[in-house]
């Protein structure tokens, strides 16, 4: 299981990488492993508001749907439409496949460092 330390993490298993005023968001290796083969991603729209702790979309596997919980609050400035045609990228390269970008993110206080997130995942069992 990978936990790159060039980014922060949420307890709902998303990663957040800051690029200037923008938060780039994806799901962690732990998340993609738990989800199994991703077959479809329901993305939000550009301009949508997201709120920390609330669902902004979902990820479908063959037999289940899992909400994607926003790790920050803000406005969606971009979504990764490549995922619509290649949802398997989330499994193959979770840290290279961003899902959405949020500009001027707020409510970032609860984000965890890579080390803290790894410890959190270990405790989840």
């Amino acid at each position, binding site marked *: 299981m990978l936990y790159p330390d060039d980014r922060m993490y949420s307890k709902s298993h998303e990663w957040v990488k800051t690029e200037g005023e923008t938060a780039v968001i994806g799901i962690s290796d732990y998340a993609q492993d738990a989800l199994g083969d991703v*077959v*479809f991603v329901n993305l939000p729209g550009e301009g949508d508001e997201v709120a920390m702790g609330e669902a902004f979309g979902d990820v*479908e*596997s*063959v*037999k*289940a*749907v899992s909400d994607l919980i926003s790790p920050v609050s803000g406005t969606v400035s971009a979504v990764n439409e490549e995922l619509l045609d290649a949802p398997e990228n989330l499994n193959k390269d979770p840290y290279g496949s961003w899902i959405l970008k949020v500009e001027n993110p707020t409510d970032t206080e609860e984000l965890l460092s890579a080390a803290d997130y790894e410890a959190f995942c270990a405790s989840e069992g």
Partner: protein
Amino acid sequence: MGSYVPSAPAQRQEMLQALGLSSWRELYRDVPPDMYLDGPLHLPHGMSELEVNRAMSAMAAKNRVYATVLRGAGAYDDYIPAIVKYIPAKEEFLTAYTPYQAEMSQGLLQSIFEYQTMICELTGMDVSNASVYDGASAAAEAAAMCRDRKRRLTLISGAAHPDVINTVRTYCYGTGDELRVVPVKDGRTDPEALAAMLDGETASFYVQQPNFYGLWEDAEALGRAVHEAGALFVMGCHPISLGIAKTPADCGADIAVGEGQPLGLPLGDGGPYLGFMACREKLMRKLPGRIVGETTDDAGRRAYVLSLQAREQHIRREKASSNICSNEALCALTAGLYLTVMGPEGLAEAARQSMAKAHYLAGALCALPGVEMAYGGPYFHEFVTRLPRREDVLCALGQADILGGLPVGEDGLLWCVTETVSKAQLDRAAAIVKEVLAK
């Protein structure tokens, strides 16, 4: 008493005892005494097969099955080829469950895949589902597909079938969404009224083609107005007419739905019928209900499987857009079979003949004094005539074993002629109407 329990009473006692029980009451020991029925139901005794046959046949004998049916209005007396009645009665198809276990159900899954393909061909759409209950619920499900966070208003043509409008109204009531009915002018959707009602909150507009009165709507023009307002265009179509009529896709529709009953299903006093739903690829993941997809198995063989299940209720639960579980699978198989037997030529022929015979009857009726077409303009196989003394007309037709047009409005009759009606039958019907009106 009739029973399908194979075991003899002695065997049942043995099985009870093997469980350490001595009575049926003990088997139900979890049922509290105040609700356990220890007396018989207040119902008649059971019957042997011969007695049941007599009882049900006696009920059937109280029905009149008209030799000539000139009424449609959502249920159509099209010809059902013999093989189309026979194949769905095969026990494998008839008594199978939903094909969740793909390895054991390839025959069923393939038949649905074929049906889906044929619905796409008829409508010009990219994707079809495996069926919903009927044309009315299909219209309601289509309206639901079109809604999003910003656009919630559903518009429906007032020239659609009243049961379709009321069903859509019901589903809208359920989700708390608004439905507005677009007024009718001269038997068709009023395009000016539609333009006035379309706005930035409109999710979709539904038009029936041909409409409830049998008239062809100017679907393309209506569709353009809908798209200009940023809404989605839903067409409810008559599947036999699609043998010769412009496809909903070519009319600009985003979703095509309709009543599939004319495709090999009997009138059956209203059901089971068949709702077909087909849409453009961009709306694929919003389609409700089961869908069969093609894939391969572990040996690379072509295989069919229920797919995109993450849309459905058993996975999404309260987040599913529809609760539909069981559908009209056997009816869909029947429809696919009908379309296979008729083929493109046969279907076109059924459509052409229905239309020709309807126009022939309309001509014969309107030649009679006092009878006139209620609306002008092109129509398919249904039409409305205004005429006096319509109850007397229907009564006289009934006595001649003819089911006449459906009373609509104050003095209208909505007639329907399908390919099953011969010229002789049509001449007879017209003669009877003439006789009644001459009195």
